[in-house]
């Protein structure tokens, strides 16, 4: 598909809105349908589309494996970190109400951060899975 100008032009046109939609699903998750998992998948889809059109090496040089490894871990660390800050603030593990003076604000902050962690990990794991399968050398 690398040499097809139509596919290239359309996908380059589509990738930014897909990423934007992913971010919308991510941050609108506590008001409407959506959340970290769905957003992570959508963002990963945009990157995978890029790899399909421009070839794996081009994508891999822009988003290298070691970067994904860091984001993968960072998501989980953020999640558990929010959990621990609940304890440090005097509540239970994952208790968001104690994160701010007003319990409602605390819940908002907590759920936003948790979902951010989920989205971060899901997106990087899915991209990494794609890299691993697509980058496999055939054994004949």
């Amino acid at each position: 598909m690398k040499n097809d100008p139509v596919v290239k032009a359309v996908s380059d046109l589509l990738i930014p809105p897909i990423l934007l939609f992913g971010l919308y699903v991510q941050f609108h998750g506590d008001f409407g349908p959506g959340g970290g998992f769905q957003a992570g998948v959508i963002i990963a889809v945009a990157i995978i589309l890029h790899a399909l059109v421009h070839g794996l090496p081009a994508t891999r040089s822009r988003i290298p494996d070691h970067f994904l490894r860091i984001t993968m871990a960072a998501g989980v660390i953020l999640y558990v970190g929010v959990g621990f800050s609940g304890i440090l603030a005097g509540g239970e593990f994952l208790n968001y109400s104690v994160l701010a003076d007003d319990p409602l604000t605390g819940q908002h902050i907590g759920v936003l951060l948790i979902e951010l962690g989920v989205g971060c990990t899901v997106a990087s794991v899915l991209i990494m899975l794609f890299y691993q399968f697509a980058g496999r050398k055939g054994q004949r």
Partner: protein
Amino acid sequence: MTAEHLPILQVAVPLALAPVCLLIGNRHLVWLLATAGGLFTFVCAAFLMVSVFNQGPLTYYLGGWEAPWGIALAIDLLSAFILLLVGLVATLTLIWGKASIENEIPGEQLSLFYCMFMLAVTGALGIVATGDAFNVFVFLEISSLSSYAMIAMGRDRRALTSSFQYLVMGTIGATFILIAIGLLYMMTGTLNMADLAARLPAVRETTTVLAAFAFLTVGVSLKIALLPLHQWLPNAYTYAPSVVSAFLSATSTKVSLYLLIRFFYTVFGADFVFRDHGLQYILMPLSLIAIFAASGIAIFQKDIKRMLAYSSIAQIGYMTLGIALVSQSGLAATIITMFNHGLIKGALFLAIGGIFLRTGTSQLAKLGGIGRTMPWTMGAVVIGGCGLIGVPLTAGFVAKWYLIVAALEGAAWVVASAIVLTSLLTVVYVWRTVEILYFKTPGDSVRDIDEVPMSMLIPTWLMVAMVIWLGIDTTLTVGLAEQAAAMLFDVTP
């Protein structure tokens, strides 16, 4: 402040360390971190044990949401006991494992391996600590998926197929458990175990609950590797990296068995399981076949790890046998066997892992005469083998003794004699191993090798020492197991 948070800390700290391990490139540092995590869970489990023993069961509400709505962690005597086993084995295998892991796992995968190990520990501890049925499934998947990945990292290429086999069987088991939990949720509208127990009696006669019960029993039995569902176990234990074989054999089947006991006694209630639906009439023959068949197969194994794997299936038979006796003493015997066998098998797999490190093989034929070059490791194998047989002054004796007493109390003479008879089968395969390892003339592969380093000998012998100690001083295991069994029988509606 932190004491009340112990139930979640011992699950969350290894979970937090897993991604940190992923980011650390230094092989010494990542090992140190993982070992510190293991040690932390052990210390937590010890504190929990003391607290539960003195002040009764603990409940912890995640996020501050109260029980039937939120997720609760519930620690009672039985769960604290199993947590202690998992924490102890995780710590000792990690301390032991540094050289072995670096020998068997390629350098660039080391941090991935420790990450997986931490996740497996998280999953095992989570299953035991949680009081929420759906949470059980989540933690079960965490521990299973990380186990599949760790088994696939084995040096032998057959590790891949055995991991895939385990993945297929394990996923079927987990799906069955999920279906069961879904059906229970459909009938009661709750996922909290205590709440389920309170609401189930009203709908206990329905087919849906019966179906849930059937799915759950088969699903968990797959994870336990109860006889007709055991095919995944021998390959998985044989081709996995040594440290994984040791950790999984000592903990994973015990954790699944804990799940079976928890669902039978706390959620469904012993009356429903045994009086109304007579599960003991299925469980008893299966356990007896498991003990006889697996011990028989173990005699003919050429690979020492494979032999121990079949011996594990036989020992699982003893544990389910205790449940099938449907008595307080039978259940206590099961709990004792779970703990003692975990330590015995852990010690044996650690010793075999040491042999594998030095010789690169676990084939019996190639290891003839190794007793002369690695006396300390082989000493551990002999004492562990004695534990498997049930020789007095080892932990195995205590376990078998209480099982036989429980069988005699239930006037099950056939069962009692079967236990004694299968001990003879165990003698055959243990003695066969000892004979080859000590009395054959050492071959080329074993003549010029050294004893394993102290860092591996000390954890192995710590476990061996515990096997002996628990065979002499039974206040810890027997006392706790009897109290736990009494507690489980009391809560039965």
